[in-house]
């Protein structure tokens, strides 16, 4: 059965690695639902957070195919329950219509979003939260008819486990390098 999986991938900071990672999804006909690339906590190591919908056999194969790329350090997959995850969203709302919809302000407060820019023409609302929360506020604002633009970031996630496989791996490799 298909589930949402969150892949957390670490790579060296070399050109072209992102292409190699996404290519594995293309070849396996998997849709990337969300993708985020950022520096990791370790110098020179990039971190990719990718969500996709598939089954466990396939996600294992995909992880190994990605890890096989020379400059990929590690690829791990998690289910929703195994990570803490969130995303960010921005909404640009029409000021005229906002004035007529007091429910919007209530919704913005309910979802812990905040207004970061206001002028006579529009206002901008920023939100952080789970994918469910951002989706709910998005549909609410859309229904109200004052939404001009909306954008959501890729999901970012950290594992809930106490184990730190990347740190363990890098430590082990540093030792192996010394032993050579």
């Amino acid at each position: 059965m298909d589930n949402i999986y969150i892949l957390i991938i670490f790579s060296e900071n070399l050109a072209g690695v992102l292409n190699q990672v996404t290519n594995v999804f293309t070849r396996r006909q998997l849709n990337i639902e969300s993708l985020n690339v950022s520096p990791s906590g370790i110098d020179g190591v990039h971190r990719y957070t990718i969500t996709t919908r598939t089954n466990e056999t396939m996600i294992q194969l995909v992880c190994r195919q990605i890890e096989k790329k020379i400059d990929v350090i590690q690829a791990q997959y998690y289910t929703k329950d195994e990570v803490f995850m969130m995303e960010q969203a921005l909404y640009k709302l029409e000021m005229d219509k906002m004035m007529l919809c007091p429910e919007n302000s209530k919704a913005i407060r309910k979802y812990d979003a905040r207004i970061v820019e206001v002028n006579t023409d529009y206002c901008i609302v920023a939100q952080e939260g789970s994918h469910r929360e951002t989706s709910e506020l998005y549909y609410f604002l859309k229904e109200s008819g004052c939404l001009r633009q909306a954008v959501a970031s890729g999901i970012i996630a950290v594992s809930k486990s106490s184990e730190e496989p990347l740190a363990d791996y890098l430590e082990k490799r540093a030792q192996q390098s010394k032993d050579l």
Partner: protein
Amino acid sequence: MTEILTGAEIMMRSLAAEGVKTIFGYPGGAIMPVFDALYDYVDYPNTSHRGTFNHILVRHEQAAAHAAEGYARVSGEVGVCLVTSGPGATNTITGIADAMMDSTPIVVITGQVHKDVLGYDAFQEVDVVDITQPICKWSYQIRNAEDVAWAVSRAFYIARSGRPGPVVLDFTKGAQTRKAEYIPKKVDFIRSYVPVPETSETCIEEAAALINKAERPFVLVGQGVELAGAQAELVRFLETCGAPAGCTMMGLSALASDHPLNMGMLGMHGALATNKQTQQCDLLIAIGMRFADRITGKLATYAPQAKKIHFDIDPAEINKCVKVDVPVLGDCKDTIAAVTKRLEKREHKAWIDSFKPWQQQEDEIVIQPQIHPAEGPLRMGEVVRKVTEATKNKAVLVTDVGQNQMMSARYFRFSRPRSIITSGGMGTMGFCLPAAIGATFGAPERTVCAIMGDGGLQMTIEELGTIMEQRCPVKIILLNNNFLGNVRQWQNLFFDKRYSFTPMVNPDYNMIASAYDIPSRTVIEREDLESAIEEMLATDGPFLLQCAIMPEDNVLPMCCPGSDVDDMVLTIEA
């Protein structure tokens, strides 16, 4: 003392430091500084000067890549290929993909336009790194002269370590001409790359326990055994556990053809017995093979009765096609030996005997009529068998793709490792001639027999020019049936004999050979075959032996696509 050299000169020094002796290449605009540097590092014709490298000028860049592959397969060394940007680079793509599929270590160096004009659609600019990334182990653009030594060493380390494969270095023109201090580099560790995965002791124990317990074990031998140099370990393993074995096409020379436990080839055109008994064994032991669709037939019904052990160096191969009970990761030279130590001596006589009725059936219906036909035109199998006998089964076989390949794989016999060079995964027609050229440089002391069809020869026929110039002793055996034979066979079986564009009008190959100053002979009558083969082998240098073979012959037995692996067709109605 520091040395200040151009990037191109650093390339030469770095290649020499990696032990490169032979380069297959073709010059062009964006690689000219490297070719200029090369001029000082090669043999000067008609003088006693001996350079560091022997550069072989091919006639098409695709051939440079295949020649590098042939060189690498036969020698175990990294093959090197040097071409220009744009079309020079894209012409090597087929060879790079071929090397990736068949785990062949090559380093392809492509020229690239100056970095200041990258992305401006400059003349002969193409995005080589992006094109090649999905079909090679590593692809890197060298944009600074300072990076050359590091990139070359990293490229060779990646190409030859772990599961070997192709590496591409895209060398921008500015990096070739600018000067930098030459500091030799030796890359033998990459943090993010573990060439040989750790072997789990538990898996070794579990594998040994399964093998000791098995009543009907069957071993699948792949090219991985050859790549690991584990032929001796394999024989000790087989002789201890007493298990019969079948070889994949890529693994044919990993186990001597006449070893009593070698039951023959696996797969679509493999032996009847090996495919039948795959579905009867109680334990499948796969070593350095990847369960390709040409081996397994219908995956869903592939050996469901058997427990499975998979020895491989590449973790991404485990459970990729076939789910296994015990994966044994690591270098199979070490893992086979480790498992062998824990094995009980067994014989499995009844199980081995159970292969015999199938072998007899195949021998009667397929093999004897193919290798000893009483009358009619020459058949492919008899030519192949006569060639292998005349070389005492010691030659290197290079094949093209199609019927010539399957017949060669079925009827050539092997007694020495690294003796089959063929395009397995990609099925690249036109592979044979350039790969055979490469093989003559990789193993100059061995006889190289290049068996091909009339279709494949014409795909890279320009390489007769390279053979002429280098006098490479390629023994070309052309099985000419005036057909694209394998496609015709499939049209016969699956497309109602509608021979859509498979009949082929051929030139006079003896005249072509003569134009290239290559001695040749055509055999039509059976009684001329042996003497013609003798003449070919007795001739110094290249030779073209054209055999007029039965026009509509079929490769049998055959496991048709989508069939269970033991569901093999033994005859096809004419």
